[in-house]
């Protein structure tokens, strides 16, 4: 597609349930990023993939958060045993080249709004 696509757009889950959020990056983009955006805040970095390799997961808040990109295209962010503080918008972004190789801008999807009850 023309842009980064994320699904679902909205997800409501009960505390303790597991959720999976999907990101379809721009075709051919090597780099993929996940961010968490709380209400009224800027996006905060979670993790970075270069193709299928997860090169940086320093922003993942706990071991309940897990991300994968097995074939170097679509990525899934999984949150296990969800808690109320996980409620936020989860944004995915992609860029054409590997980080460090250039300063290509990151292009964002519209996010998944996750609400934990």
């Amino acid at each position: 597609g023309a842009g980064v696509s994320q699904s679902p757009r909205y997800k409501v889950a009960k505390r303790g349930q597991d959720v999976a959020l999907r990101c379809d990056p721009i075709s051919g983009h090597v780099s993929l990023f996940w961010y968490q955006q709380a209400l009224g805040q800027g996006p905060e970095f979670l993790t970075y993939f270069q193709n299928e390799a997860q090169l940086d997961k320093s922003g993942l808040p706990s071991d309940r958060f897990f991300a994968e990109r097995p074939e170097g295209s679509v990525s899934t962010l999984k949150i296990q045993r969800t808690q109320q503080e996980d409620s936020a918008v989860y944004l995915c972004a992609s860029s054409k080249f590997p980080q460090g190789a250039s300063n290509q801008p990151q292009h964002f999807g519209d996010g998944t709004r996750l609400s934990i009850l």
Partner: protein
Amino acid sequence: EDQVTQSPEALRLQEGESSSLNCSYTVSGLRGLFWYRQDPGKGPEFLFTLYSAGEEKEKERLKATLTKKESFLHITAPKPEDSATYLCAVQGLRDKLIFGTGTRLQVFP
């Protein structure tokens, strides 16, 4: 620690009333400073990248400038459709983007 501070938090302008948004930053080895626009319920939309002090970029009514410590987004004769949250982000030696909390701009007709 890499850090970005944006001001003001919110700005209300009359249509045609020019103004500037500020982004102050501290970063170890600036690789790029990015401006994004974010509409409610949408992801950030890329506007500009600035790489070095003294650089300027323009797009329609927007002009971004960069010094060693801060960046400004100048809005000339804004229109209601310019209403959005404007986000500033820096990329340092660690490559990840560090975002500010944004400036929420409202332009009234």
